[in-house]
């Protein structure tokens, strides 16, 4: 199957002004001007198949937004190639953008003082969406995103969650093949997040829309994405399944055992005790050195076990470790 997005050796460099600090900084900044080069995106390669749902991760300033801006044609790369659905995004702007949808987290595409519905109407004219398609899409999205309670309210009076739902709806009215979402759940409460996640999943599965989302919230990624890309300091560090990442860098797994009686010295080869709480003992063990089943076997041959649980490390923890310890470099 041909890929819908192909990115080759993508570079984006910026010049950034230096500011002085300290005692005479006011005068210094007034009279001098120095720049240094920032490689916001540095030699990134990836391909995305039609219908995939991709999570694009990285700490602040890693190059996520810059990549997304290049993919949507807002920025022209310094070097390398992008091909999206047969287009070079920064060229043939009008033709290209009518095939994609984009939501940039904090900013609304909607008209501030207009009721939501009238913004949609205006978008119908802008994208020249056929009347029938517009009605069909809007009816569907209204129900799924529960827009009806505020569809006649001016955008300025919406809550953040409502606004985000309206914005996502607006980005999809023209049936785009690809949807770019930049931090779609930022600042939302749990319920609102869940609703948006379900909707994204629906769009991806039901319509086969390719979705690329950047996020800080790893539960988004855990629930939605089968494949993730991790970028840091402009370089692509990881491209693959979430599960593999966990296995590779997940660190120690934990085995929590409830015994029938207290075994204060229940030592076992291949695992370390990290916590003893009455009859409950928590062990930690390396994923590579021993299988959980072996460990359980050894334990149950020596002690009486009531219940046990194998705990995978939290994904947030894993990714934080990757950033902090720079494990992928």
């Amino acid at each position: 199957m041909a890929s819908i997005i192909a990115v080759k050796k993508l570079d984006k460099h910026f010049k950034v002004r230096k500011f002085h600090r300290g005692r005479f900084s006011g005068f210094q900044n007034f009279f001098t001007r120095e720049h240094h080069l920032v490689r916001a995106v540095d030699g990134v390669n990836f391909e995305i198949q039609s219908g995939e749902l991709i999570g694009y991760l990285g700490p602040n300033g890693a190059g996520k937004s810059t990549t997304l801006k290049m993919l949507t044609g807002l920025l022209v790369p310094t070097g390398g190639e992008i091909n999206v659905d047969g287009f070079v995004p920064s060229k043939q702007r009008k033709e290209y953008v009518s095939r994609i949808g984009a939501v940039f987290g904090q900013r609304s595409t909607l008209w501030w003082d207009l009721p939501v519905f009238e913004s949609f109407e205006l978008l119908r004219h802008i994208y020249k969406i056929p009347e029938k398609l517009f009605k069909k899409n809007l009816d569907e999205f209204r129900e799924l995103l529960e827009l009806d309670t505020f569809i006649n309210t001016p955008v300025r009076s919406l809550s953040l969650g409502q606004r985000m739902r309206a914005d996502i709806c607006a980005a999809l009215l023209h049936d785009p093949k690809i949807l770019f979402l930049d931090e779609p759940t930022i600042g939302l409460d749990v319920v609102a997040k869940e609703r948006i996640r379900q909707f994204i999943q629906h769009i991806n599965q039901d319509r086969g829309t390719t979705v690329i989302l950047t996020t800080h919230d790893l539960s988004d990624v855990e629930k939605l994405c089968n494949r993730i890309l991790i970028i840091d300091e402009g370089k692509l560090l990881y491209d693959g399944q979430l599960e593999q990442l966990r296995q590779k860098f997940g660190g120690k797994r934990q085995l929590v055992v409830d015994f029938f009686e207290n075994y204060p010295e229940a030592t076992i080869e291949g695992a370390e005790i990290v916590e003893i709480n009455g009859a409950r003992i928590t062990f930690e063990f390396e994923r590579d050195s021993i299988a959980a089943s072996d460990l359980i076997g050894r334990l149950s041959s020596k002690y009486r076990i009531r219940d046990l649980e194998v705990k995978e490390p939290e994904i947030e923890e894993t990714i934080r470790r990757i950033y902090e310890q720079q494990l992928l470099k």
Partner: protein
Amino acid sequence: MQNSIKLLNKYISVNLRSQLQYRLTFVFEVFGTILLTLTEFAALALVLLKFENIGGWTVGEVAFLYGTINASFGIMDMFFSGFDPRNFGRHVRMGTFDQLLLRPINITLQVLGLEFQFRRIGRIMIGVGILIYSVQTTSILWTGEKAIVLFFAIIGQIAYFGGLFIFGATITFWTIESIEVVNILTYGGSDLIAYPMNIYPELLRKFFTFILPAIFLNYYPALFILGRPDPFNFPPYAHWLSPFAGMLILFFSLRFWRFGITKYQSTGT
């Protein structure tokens, strides 16, 4: 083209509706604009009570220049407010401009549609008011030709200053801090041609004749309509040149605007 006009109409009605939601602010702003222009003109008119004339022009005659440029600058400001460098720079920084780039229609049209400041009606009203005052005090002998010259003068002024707004908006792709300099061309330019051009030092006047052809926008049409002699001996059709001067500036500004967008897409902000 037809679709563009339809969209532009939509944009205008959207803007009108949102602005009328804040009725009190709207009235305040209109009233404020009227007073500001009136105050500036009053300062000159009051001083002329003691000084009698400026560059050989009476209060009523200067009022003709003053009224015309304020009316057309008001019209321009209303339709080109999307390009007003002060607002446009903000849109670029806030990412609104990115949103426009993500829509499949002409970008210039969208920036025009971004804002129509209907409260500029105040400046148009006071401009027309001062113009009427001028007509009453100078007893101009109107002919059809003079009316057409005035109409063309206004068209030229709108195009010229609209062009300069687009030029200024383009500058904000590079810098927003020094955008005030563009005020020299826009507000400075409109102030400049509110006075008879013969008062300026030669260098300044030549700059606004041969580099930026502002002298044809207001001064020559006024000379013709007021029936005053031309001190600079330009060809007798000079009073017709306003629309050409305006279109010239608009044309080059639009070229620069396209170049600016390309640059913006290669460096961001």
